[in-house]
Every structure is written in C-alpha cells, then in structure tokens.
C-alpha cells in the first residue's frame, strides 16, 4: 500500500465564534431580564409607578453608575444588547442580500463595536 502524506496547513481560524458568543450572551441576558429592565427604566421609573420618585433623579442614577457593580451592569446590558442586535441584523441582511458583506459588517458589527467603546469611555468619564 502506498502511503501518501498530505501536507495541509492548519485551517484558517474564523472570528465568527466571537460574534456568536456575544450574540448568545446578549440574547440570553435580554431573554431573562429584558422585560423587567424595560418595565423598570421605560415605564416605572420615568412615571414614578410603584417606586419612589427620587429613584430616577440625577443623584440616585449617578450614584448607581458610579458604583463599580453598577458600571458592570450598565456595560453588560448596553454592549451585549448592541452585539445581539448586530448579529441578528447582519445575518438577516446577508440573507436578504441587502448589500456587499464588508459594508453590512461595518453597519452592524462596526456600529456595535463603536458604541461599546463609547459606553466604556462614558462610564470611565463619569468616574467612580
């Protein structure tokens, strides 16, 4: 029997799993806590329903965002929600053949990456 050695270089690694992980994390976070978050920040806090009116004022919210745990919560919610939306929009626009893939990547992953950096910068600028 003749032995044939196949000289293959290692398969090229894809970055897709990274985006998939961020998509999954954002999807799970929004599925578990999304409804409560929207009810809290969109309905109860602005209208003072069921909560002290002072909870939505500047000092209280600033205090929350200045706490390290508060910063972590804000970053996780905003960044992961953006990455979740970006992955869904990218794959759907790709299926719709809405445009060239590099452009679609820029409009989805690119925007999510930029807004994540903006969120980090704001959280650092607000200080601890």
């Amino acid at each position: 029997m003749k032995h044939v050695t196949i000289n293959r270089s290692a398969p090229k690694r894809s970055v897709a799993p990274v985006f998939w992980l961020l998509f999954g994390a954002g999807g799970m976070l929004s599925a578990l806590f999304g409804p409560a978050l929207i009810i809290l920040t969109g309905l109860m806090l602005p209208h003072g329903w069921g909560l002290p009116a002072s909870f939505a004022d500047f000092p209280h919210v600033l205090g929350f965002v200045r706490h390290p745990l508060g910063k972590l919560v804000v970053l996780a919610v905003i960044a992961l929600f953006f990455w979740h939306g970006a992955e869904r929009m990218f794959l759907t626009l790709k299926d719709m053949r809405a445009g060239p893939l590099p452009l679609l990547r820029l409009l989805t992953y690119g925007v999510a990456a930029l807004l994540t950096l903006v969120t980090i910068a704001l959280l650092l600028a607000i200080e601890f």
Partner: protein
Amino acid sequence: MSERRPFHRPQPRYWWAHKPYLAYTLRELTGVAVALYAAILLAGLVCLWRGPQAFDVYRKILASKGSLLVHLVLLAAVLWHVITWFQILPKTMPKLILGGRLVPPRSVTAIALVLAFFCSAGLLVVVIVIGALS
C-alpha cells in the same frame, strides 16, 4: 466541455416578507428592538455624563406619552424575543438526557420560559422592595 453551470432556483426579491419566512423575519426584527433599547439607555448615559440639566431633559422625554408608547412596543417585541429565543434553545444546545431518556424539546422550552419569568419577576420584586424600604 465541463464548465459548471449550476442551476439557481429563482427566488423572489422580497421572499422574507412572505410566509413561511415571515416568522423568521419577525423573530430577527426583535434584535432591532433589543438594540434600540440599548440605544435609549446609552442616550441616558450621555445625558448623565453631561450633567443634571441634560439629565432632566432626558427624564422629561422618557416621561412623555411618545416614550411610553415606544417602550410598550419594545416590551412586546422583547416578550416575542423571549418566547422565540427559548423555542430555539433545544435546537442550539446539546441533547438533554436525564435518566437515560431524552428530555423533549418542548419541556426544555417550557422550563426555560418559567425560569425567565422568575428572573424578570424577581428583579422587579427586588427593586420594588428596595424602593418600599428606602
């Protein structure tokens, strides 16, 4: 004479707006709602950074009728995301076998939905209790 000429089945341009693909399109649109909600929170963060006056403007906008309507629509979309997310879950996770028997996908979805309900309800109860005690 071996040039490949594969057959491409013609597909209407707006296939995603018609059944059965419409369900898929609607599910994917919940991603837009999730991102939009993140954008509303980010706008709040920008106003918080700019100072008390900017934050009061943000609060006024959030207390408006339009904002209420937007958030109700977002809430409906995210609730649809919750349902579809856990419908997909049994397909994306490894098969769950307990005591030598396959746990049916429907049960996985049902258990996950109950868990999601307790997560959201739990968070609301904790915040309301903190509010009542403070």
